[in-house]
C-alpha cells in the first residue's frame, strides 16, 4: 500500500474545532520545549481511481476483442487473472460495479448526495459495453465472475425448474437493494458481499463461509453467484438482450452436434426446437388475455405484501431504530440507557424532530416498497410467461440475456476447427 505522509498546515485547517473544552491552560514552557509536528497520512485514492477506470476500459476492450475477433478463450483467462489480482486482491474488491447500483440510485433521487465520478464510471462503462457487445464485463473483468470462472472444472447442469426459479432471485435482490438504498437505510449489496472477505483475507466469518461455499459450488456448476444472486448481472442482462452485437458460437454452418450446449457453464446455449403444435387462434387469444389478468394480479399481490412488511423492513434504517429505542426509553425511563439514546439526548435532538424523521422514512418505505413489490410481481409474471413461449429454432443459438461471453463454446464447435475466419 502506498503511503504518502504530508504535513498538514492551513490546507486542512478548514474543519478546525473551536470549542474544545479547556479545563487546563496552555502550559508555559520554560525549557524551550517545541511542540512536536503532527503529521496525518492523506488518502491515496485519486491516482488509483484513474488507474481503475483505465484498466476497466482496457480489460473490457480485450474481452470484446477476444469474443468477436480473436474468438479464443486465452485473452479472457488472462483478463480474469489480471482482474482478480488487481480489482480483487490489490484494490480489496471495493471498486465494484455491483455495489455502484446503490450509489447511482441514491444520486438519482437525492440532490445532496455526492456521487464520486469513479463510481459513476464503474456503473456506466460495463452497461455501455453490454449495450454494444453483450455481457463482456461478466466474462472476466468482474473479479467475482473471474474467480468463479477460474475454479470451474465441470459444469453439471442444474435442472431447468430449479434454475428458472433461482434466476428470479437477482431481480428480487436488486429490488430490495434499491429499496434500502433509496430510503438511505443500508447498502445491502455491500453488506452481504460473499467474496469481499476472500479478497481482503479477512472479514465476517459467515460471509466468508458463504463465499467459499459458492466457490466450491462453482467447481461443479458454472458461476452460481452470477446466475442466481448478482443484481448487476440482472441489470446487464436487460442491456445485453437488446445489444447491438451478440456473441456467435461459430461463424460457419452449425452442424447441430450439441457440443456447445454441453460446454456452456451458464446454460445459455439454446438447443434447436421444432414447434410442432400449431396453436388455435382463439386459444392463443385467450392465453394472452389470461396473462393480461395474471400479471397485474401478481403485481398487486407484490404491492400488498411489500406494504404489509414495510414497517418491519424500515427497521434497517438507523433513524427508525433510534426512534424505537427512544420511544422505549420514554415509556420506561428507569431502564439503563443504550448508547444511542444517550447520544441522542446529549446532541440536544428533540423527540418531535425524530418522530417527523421516522414518519418520513416510513412513508418512503411505503412508496418505494410498493414500487419494488410491483416490479417483483412483474418479473415473476414475465418469467412465468416466458416458460410458456416456445420458439422454433433451427440450430443451436446463444441466449444473449444469460450468455456471459466466457468463450467456452468457441473451441468446442467442430465447424470452427481448422477454418480460420
Amino acid at each position: 500500500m502506498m503511503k504518502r505522509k504530508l504535513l498538514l498546515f492551513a490546507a486542512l485547517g478548514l474543519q478546525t474545532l473551536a470549542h474544545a473544552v479547556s479545563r487546563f491552560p496552555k502550559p508555559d514552557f520554560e525549557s524551550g520545549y517545541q511542540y512536536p509536528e503532527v503529521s496525518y497520512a492523506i488518502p491515496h485514492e485519486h491516482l488509483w481511481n484513474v488507474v481503475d477506470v483505465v484498466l476497466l476500459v482496457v480489460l473490457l476492450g480485450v474481452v470484446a476483442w477476444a469474443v468477436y475477433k480473436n474468438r479464443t478463450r486465452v485473452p479472457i483467462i488472462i483478463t480474469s487473472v489480471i482482474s482478480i489480482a488487481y480489482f480483487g486482491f490489490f484494490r480489496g474488491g471495493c471498486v465494484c460495479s455491483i455495489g455502484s447500483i446503490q450509489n447511482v440510485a441514491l444520486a438519482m433521487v437525492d440532490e445532496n448526495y455526492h456521487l464520486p465520478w469513479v463510481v459513476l464510471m464503474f456503473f456506466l462503462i460495463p452497461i455501455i459495453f453490454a449495450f454494444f457487445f453483450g455481457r463482456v464485463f461478466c466474462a472476466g473483468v468482474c473479479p467475482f465472475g473471474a474467480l468463479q470462472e477460474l475454479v470451474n472444472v465441470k459444469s453439471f447442469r442444474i435442472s431447468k425448474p430449479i434454475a428458472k426459479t433461482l434466476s428470479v432471485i437477482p431481480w428480487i435482490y436488486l429490488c430490495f437493494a434499491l429499496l434500502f438504498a433509496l430510503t438511505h437505510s443500508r447498502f445491502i449489496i455491500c453488506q452481504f458481499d460473499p467474496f469481499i472477505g476472500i479478497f481482503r483475507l479477512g472479514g465476517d466469518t459467515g460471509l466468508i463461509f458463504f463465499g467459499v461455499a459458492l466457490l466450491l459450488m462453482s467447481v461443479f456448476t458454472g458461476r452460481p453467484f452470477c446466475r442466481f444472486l448478482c443484481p448487476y448481472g440482472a441489470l446487464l442482462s436487460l442491456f445485453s438482450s437488446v445489444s447491438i452485437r451478440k456473441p456467435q458460437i461459430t461463424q460457419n454452418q452449425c452442424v447441430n452436434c450439441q457440443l456447445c450446449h454441453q460446454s456452456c457453464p451458464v446454460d445459455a446455449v439454446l438447443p434447436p426446437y421444432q414447434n410442432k403444435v400449431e396453436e388455435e387462434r382463439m386459444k392463443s387469444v385467450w392465453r394472452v388475455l389470461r396473462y393480461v389478468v395474471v400479471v397485474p394480479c401478481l403485481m398487486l399481490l407484490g404491492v400488498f405484501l411489500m406494504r404489509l412488511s414495510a414497517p418491519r423492513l424500515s427497521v434497517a434504517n438507523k433513524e427508525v431504530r433510534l426512534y424505537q429505542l427512544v420511544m422505549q426509553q420514554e415509556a420506561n425511563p428507569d431502564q439503563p440507557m443504550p448508547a444511542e439514546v444517550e447520544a441522542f439526548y446529549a446532541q440536544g435532538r428533540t423527540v418531535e424532530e425524530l418522530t417527523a424523521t421516522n414518519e418520513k422514512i416510513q412513508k418512503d418505505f411505503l412508496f418505494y416498497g410498493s414500487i419494488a413489490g410491483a416490479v417483483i410481481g412483474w418479473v415473476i409474471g414475465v418469467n412465468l410467461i416466458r416458460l410458456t413461449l416456445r420458439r422454433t429454432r433451427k440450430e443451436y443459438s446463444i441466449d444473449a440475456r444469460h450468455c456471459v461471453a466466457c468463450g467456452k463454446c468457441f473451441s468446442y464447435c467442430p465447424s470452427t476447427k481448422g477454418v480460420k475466419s
Partner: protein
Amino acid sequence: MKDKKDQTLDNSPIKRRDFFRRLGSIVAGGAILGIGGVGVSRVVDKEESSEFWQIDPNLCTQCGRCETHCVMPVSAVRCVHAVKVCGYCDLCGGYYRTNAKELNTAAENMICPTGAIQRKFVEDPYFEYTIDEDLCNGCGKCVKGCNSFGNGSLYLQIKQDLCLNCNECKISTVCASNAIKRVSYGTVYYLKEHA
C-alpha cells in the same frame, strides 16, 4: 425452395421481432443516456465531493464500536493527539485510570489496554503524551478519559492510509451517535488546534 408456410414465418414474425429488438435497443440506449446525464450532474468537483469517511469528534461518544466493527482485522480508527490543546498534565485522565491505586506505569493503573500511550517528562510539572499508532486499536477509552477530565485533546479519527474506503463504512452503520460522515478530500481530518 421454400414452401408457403416457411415464407410467412420468414416474413411477418421475424420482422416484428426485429422491430421489438430495435425498440428495445433505443429504450436501452436512452436509459444509458438518461442515467449518465443525471449521474454526471450529481458528480461534483473532485476537491469538494465527499468521498472519505471521517469521525466528527464533536458528535463522537466513544461507544467503543469503532474498535470492534471495522472490516479491517485491526480497526482503521486511531486516537490522535492535538498537542496544542493538551494541558501536559501529570495527572492525565487519558493516561491513568480513575481508580488507579498508584500513579505508576503498572498495567492496572493505565487506561490504554494496549499500552499505546507513552509519556515523556518535559519539565516540572509537564509531561508530553504521544500515541503509538502501531499499538492503538481505536477503542477510545483514553478519549473518554481525556474528554471527562482534561482538555479533550485526544480524539478518534479514521486514518486515511489504513481505511479501505468501503462503499458504506461498517462502523457508520452501528455508530451510536451518527458521528461518522463522508468528508471531502480537502478536509479529510478534523483538526483541533486551539483550546
